[in-house]
């Protein structure tokens, strides 16, 4: 089973118990205007241009014969500053798993487990499920928007040890406005999660005037009841990567 990821982070300390390794899946059905991982939004590999390092030598515009450069119209193997990088790598689940297991071997007793993040890991459910099989019996955790069909959601969480799920906005219309989708599926999946025996954590990113309003937080509280809940402070500097991808950060200046 082949999937697309955009990063692997060793020693993730905020993504679940113990020293963990986090895999970032590429592609997400949501378009949260505050997203700080824009390279996780579209499923296809993308060219990232780190303009700050560019000296203007224009060597990347000289035609080359590398097959992987063709679709970008620029040579990615010539920049002395490494300004051009491709975000997104397609990889077979078994191969990825053996790469990932290296960190478990190194850390031994101090290893906590693996976390699937993104992007939206549930957007590649079959790839995720085969990766889960390969990585068992390690402690496995997901960070998800919860936006997927309930059948997939149920099938996946059943295999996991810890679920971190966002509830960003309680009002579906606002959810549609700021994330591109309504929250019906998410709330439905939340009830599946709540009724499962799995340990979980609900997260809400605190976006000024959008999610971080008294009304929204009270409404979320109403929905999740006594569920464990973490509110994440937001850093506007997170917008830096948009420019590298030629994308527009809708929160710019906010």
């Amino acid at each position, binding site marked *: 089973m082949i999937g697309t990821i955009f990063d692997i982070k*060793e*020693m993730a300390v905020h993504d679940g118990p113990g*020293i963990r390794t986090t895999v970032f899946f590429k592609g997400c059905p949501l378009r949260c205007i505050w997203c700080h991982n824009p390279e996780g939004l579209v499923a296809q590999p993308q060219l990232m241009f780190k303009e700050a390092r560019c000296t203007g030598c224009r*060597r990347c515009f000289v035609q080359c014969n590398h097959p992987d450069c063709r679709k970008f119209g620029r040579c990615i193997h010539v*920049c002395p500053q490494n300004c051009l990088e491709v975000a997104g790598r397609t990889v077979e689940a078994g191969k990825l798993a053996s790469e990932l297991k290296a960190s478990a071997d*190194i850390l*031994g007793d*101090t290893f906590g487990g693996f976390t699937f993040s993104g992007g939206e890991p549930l957007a590649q459910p079959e790839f995720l499920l085969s990766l889960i099989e390969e990585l068992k019996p390690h402690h496995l955790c997901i960070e998800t928007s919860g936006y997927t069909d309930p059948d997939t959601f149920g099938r996946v969480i059943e295999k996991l040890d810890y679920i971190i799920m966002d509830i960003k906005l309680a009002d579906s219309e606002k959810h549609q406005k700021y994330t591109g989708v309504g929250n019906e599926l998410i709330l439905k999946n939340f009830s599946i999660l709540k009724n499962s025996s799995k340990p979980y954590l609900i997260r809400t990113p605190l976006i000024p005037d959008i999610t971080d309003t008294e009304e929204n937080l009270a409404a979320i509280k109403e929905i999740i009841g006594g569920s464990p809940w973490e509110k994440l402070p937001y850093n506007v500097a997170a917008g830096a990567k948009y420019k590298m991808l030629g994308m527009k950060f809708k929160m710019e200046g906010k």
Partner: protein
Amino acid sequence: MTKTYNFILEKKHHQFRHSVDWNLAEEYAEKGLSPIQRMADRFERLCKEEKAVILEGEQIVFLRTVSNLPAIFTDAEWEEIKAGHHIHELGFLSNLSPNYYDTIATGLLKKRETADEYGKQAIDNIIALSDKYLAEARAQGREDLVEVLTQVPRYPARNFREALQFFRILHFALWLEGNYHNTVGRFDRYIYPYLKADMDKGIYTYDSALALLEDFFLSFNKDSDIYVGVQQGDNGQSMMLGGIDEEGNDVYNLLSELCLKASCNNKMIDPKINLRVSKSTPADRYTEATKLTKAGLGFPQYSNDDVVIPALEAMGYDHVDATNYTVAACWEFIVPNVGADVANISAMSYPKAVDTALHKSLSTAETYEDFFAAVEGEIKAECDRICSGIKDLWFIPSPFMNVLMDCNIYEGGKYNNFGIHGTGIATAADSLAAIKKYVFEEKSLTAAELIAAVDSNFENTPELLHKLRFETPKLGNNDDFVDGIATALLDAFGAALKGRVNCRGGIFRAGTGSAMYYLWHANEIGASPDGRREKEPFGTNYSVSLFAKVKGPVSVIASMTKQHFENAMNGGPLTLEFHQSVFADEDGIEKVGLLVKNFIDRGGHQLQLNTVNLEKMLDAQKNPDAYKQLVVRIWGWSAYFVELDREYQDHVIARQAYTV
């Protein structure tokens, strides 16, 4: 913080300083005084010139009021001495760990009985200076200080406060005598009994003991701006905590804990905190230590008893001495009291050995093994050159340092080994990985092409530069292909020094440190086959290359713990840089502690962690006045960022930082 703290922080104590313009060298030359007579006389004059200054509320006194040490030799005399001897750095004794503790327990009057005539003279002068402080304490009505200074330094310390004050006087005197990189040694081991006795008597609470210790720690920072090494901060005031004693008992105690805390609270660059740990160190101690890492001072630096002690024993150190090891100014392993090792006498550049072999032997080497043998040959040749160049080592005799050592330091000590740093191992390993892969395995590059590209600084081969720099295996990714090359290089360096006897009858110890050579050696060669352009620096100490793309700290640890450190145990840490955000909560702190534990459990030898904040450093370059207290770690010492030269600032900025 106390009034004294703010006074020192704002450098108001500088008002008490003055410099002297004595032409001692001419006078001594005319009188025909011997070097030791000159040292004894200068010390006497300086003690007389020093004024007693007691700041309001200050607990631990002694402040340098004379800011310079006039030369004792004329230029011509010094040239003559240098022509006949190997002079190490400034020529004064440095990087020793003297026996403060025996003196604190016996008093200077007792030490005087066995001292030579110059030692007696030095002791008399210190007591006279101390009496000036005593008189000032009386004048200020400071009864507490009167009591302390009536007892020490003449007589043994009777309690924690007297022990701290006594230490301060001895350490102050060593600096005033002209010795430098005066280390602190295993402070918690020897001072703890005084604290314990006072705690048992109920004299201190945890908090009041901590407050006193903070005042003591502050004393290391009062004069440190005049103890300048290569840069300000490079002053060697290293303190060792924890570790085992000769029976294998864990030394770590309440004082160790208080020291971590005092350093964390003071947030000053001295003393430099080191912590000895081992497989049996409990996980929560790493958490406590990581709280200090979070403070951003670059402390503590960890040394692994499981690895260091057996290696020292294998080099010929007695079991008792090996278990008692501490560090010199930065990270070089030395033995207190009896050791006279010169742990930083020179440095060998791995990338230079590779560069020489590249130009001399690559075109004729048939296999990678042939080529590596040529590199080994260059390492050996460089060691030949370094070792044969060190003859007739001579130090300016320091009578008071001699009093504090348990050996006749003029003759050398029980151990007289010379340490040689090894610079740029990652640059060399990465270069060899590129050569092995492209020239010998894939045969996609000829020797001539690679040499031409390196010699032209990759001007005409941008694609090759990109490939070498960003798409070739690098040390730090848990890749045996490169990691094994680093192992072979370290082994080669150890083997090249093995069996050699130095001019004092000791051995040569191979090391994993770089000191300032990461900049100096980098300028000795041009570009290198790892895609490093000319003038780009190497990584510091035992670290990965500055531009190597690594998977993360876990893989770096795996790569850097595979080597056979028993062959190269002069010291020099792996450095990891973490962004401040990693330490945002207790959970992050505990996890960094676990990572350190993992490094130690895997058999790593020495580790140093930095908390960095790139945004702050960049802003500090623009607005230095707003960041006077921003501390960064350089190679074996920490410094105030804004006081560093630009090239050192830029290197710190270029280092890898791991965020979460």
